[in-house]
């Protein structure tokens, strides 16, 4: 579903410079010889299997709440955490909407069709906030 057909509405209060964080599970770390670095696989950036949009966490909100980045990895041993800008998502035809959860008030969703190109764009243009364990 493209953004124009989506029941979700892009939230203008989430600025283009907003950092969106996403957990990366073990098994999604790959070494990209072309980049000379470890990065997440494109497979780490997809909608939920139930069809709901890709979950992210609003990084600044976490910090404003006095938490640290590692707190969103609590209970997820071996995971890494990456960050990408809302601008990157929008450049890929995606929208962002807040969807606070009881256990994660900074939760949001990135909606729009996750083509291979979109997933690769996220994978290649994100930065590690919490690097994968050695």
């Amino acid at each position, binding site marked *: 579903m493209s953004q124009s057909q989506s029941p979700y509405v892009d939230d203008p209060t989430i600025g283009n410079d907003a950092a969106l964080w996403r*957990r990366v*599970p073990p*098994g*999604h770390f*790959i*070494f*990209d*010889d*072309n*980049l000379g670095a470890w990065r997440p*696989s*494109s*497979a*780490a950036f*997809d909608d*939920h*299997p*139930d069809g709901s949009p*890709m*979950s992210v966490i609003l990084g600044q909100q976490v910090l404003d709440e006095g938490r640290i980045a590692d707190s969103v990895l609590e209970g*997820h041993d071996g*995971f890494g955490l990456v960050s990408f800008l809302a601008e990157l998502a929008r450049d890929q035809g995606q929208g962002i909407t807040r969807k606070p959860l009881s256990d994660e008030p900074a939760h949001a969703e990135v909606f729009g069709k996750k083509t*291979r190109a979109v997933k*690769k764009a996220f994978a290649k243009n994100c930065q590690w906030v919490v690097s994968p364990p050695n």
Partner: protein
Amino acid sequence: LEANILTLDLLERPNSSEALTNTRWRAAAYEPRIASHFTFTDISSIARRFMVPFGPVSLVFAEPPAAWFNNLLAEISQIGDLKENWDSYGARPIDPRCAEAAANLLWAVLDSSTPKPFVVPTSRGGIQLEWHRAGVDLELEIESPARVNVCFEDHREGTEQEITLSGDLRPLTHFLKRLGEAD
């Protein structure tokens, strides 16, 4: 035993020329081969085979595969242990039939000198095989045994191709050849 064996059709490795138009690869017309019954003869035969655990089932080979293939099998086997929600975002366990398809496909197109891929589980229960080297990105997503999507991006030439793999493996062997050209 009945529900715990997934037979893998890797009885004979095709030679390189066969691999170009591999007729054993049947992605477009997949036939489930999860055994529902074994006779004593079958069990005796299985006892001589090489079994690779994959979660609650086993992938069975007619004979131990070549040593260079063992690491790939171990990686495939490892993702069979993933439980529901393994990515913390509701991911599904990996479908053993996708593991079978991945092993069959890799066995058909790789040899000991081919660069080996990363074996990556997908949240929908499939497997993605990835190579990122020599100025090339190659990704194969096995969504199901009947659907394999291939994305090939050559940064040296600025070209990109996306195809759905059918019985003809020639496009894939071509892409793999480009991966190895820098060596």
